[in-house]
């Protein structure tokens, strides 16, 4: 039995914390949408399409965080052999696919609005597409690769290599002069490159999306562990019946 029951005090505390996180994520998201639609000024050149920025950039951030989480959890699983790390790695990879898909889709739509094209083989876009392929490969390897510890090792190595792509995506516009706008947030960005209210809204949006990610990841990890527990239960029943 791997999952903590909700009837124990610790289980109830976790359950309350998880519910609280969900309520916080919903409330913060409502505020975030208000800020994006009503509070932030409209950009002069791009018009309202610039508001895609407040979704696109946090999704990009989470796409990169997810692969780092997958790699970290994979390393921890290789070291400790504890099932919870594997559940975390797998769950984060699933979210990674969703975020990477959304980065590409939202970027393509914004690209059409701003540049007049859906896609360009720009360094940032291409490295993000590579990240998407890494996530998909990871999940395919888990589903169809060798079973047991060998498959897990292969997937872990892929995740660790994938994590190297995250800083490359971030630095792509600095290392290669491309169509994609220059960095406006993070350690490599120029200070003052973003209007104050836009910067606040972007930061807030990134925090809200991160809270939502933590909550959903928690739910998914819990579900994954229950799936593992049901598999164990199946084995027990097949042995007894």
């Amino acid at each position, binding site marked *: 039995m791997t999952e903590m*029951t909700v009837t124990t005090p610790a289980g109830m505390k976790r359950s309350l914390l998880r519910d609280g996180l969900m309520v916080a994520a*919903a409330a913060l998201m409502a505020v975030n949408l208000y800020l994006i639609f009503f509070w932030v000024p409209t950009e002069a050149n791009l018009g*309202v*399409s610039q508001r895609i920025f407040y979704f696109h950039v946090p999704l990009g951030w989470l796409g990169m965080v997810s692969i780092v989480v997958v790699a970290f959890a994979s390393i921890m699983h290789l070291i400790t052999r504890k099932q919870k790390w594997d559940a975390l790695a797998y769950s984060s990879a699933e979210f990674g696919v969703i975020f990477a898909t*959304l980065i590409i889709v939202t970027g393509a739509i914004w690209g059409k609005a701003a540049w007049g094209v859906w896609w360009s083989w720009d360094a940032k876009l291409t490295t993000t597409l590579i990240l998407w392929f890494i996530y998909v490969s990871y999940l395919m390897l888990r589903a169809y690769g060798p079973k047991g510890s060998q498959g897990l090792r292969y997937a872990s190595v892929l995740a660790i290599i994938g994590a190297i792509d995250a800083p490359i995506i971030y630095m792509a516009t600095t290392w290669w002069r491309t169509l994609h706008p220059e960095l406006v947030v993070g350690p490599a960005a120029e200070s003052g490159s973003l209007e104050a209210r836009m910067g606040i809204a972007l930061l807030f949006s990134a925090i809200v999306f991160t809270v939502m990610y933590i909550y959903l990841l928690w739910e998914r990890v819990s579900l994954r562990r*229950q799936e593992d527990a049901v598999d164990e239960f199946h084995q027990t029943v097949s042995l007894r019946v």
Partner: protein
Amino acid sequence: MQLMSSIRQSHFVCKATLAAVVLVVVLAAYGVFAGVASASVERPQAVAGQVIVPQAEEGQAREPEANLPYLFAVFIITWALMFGYVFYMSRRQQSLQREIELLRAALNEKAGKQANEVGANQ
């Protein structure tokens, strides 16, 4: 039994509420924003017999509300995918619960049969 209690029962309602809240906010924002934009920007009047040509890309970018469909496409796709995934998780949880009930029934049936056999032997 312990496993059954570990399956969290009804987050589905909470998630549906979250979905409804976000959807209402987005739709309200769309309504208000589109209303404000259409009131503040002069639109070209259609003249009988005149063909209305779509605006050039550059021109579109200059008008504040010209790219509104792109903005809402992004928001709708993002939320559709997110809630689609949450829905998948809820369904998976329900199917796990059904699976456990079946397994428990199989175990109880087996235990009942064994008890009957022991009783008959005695």
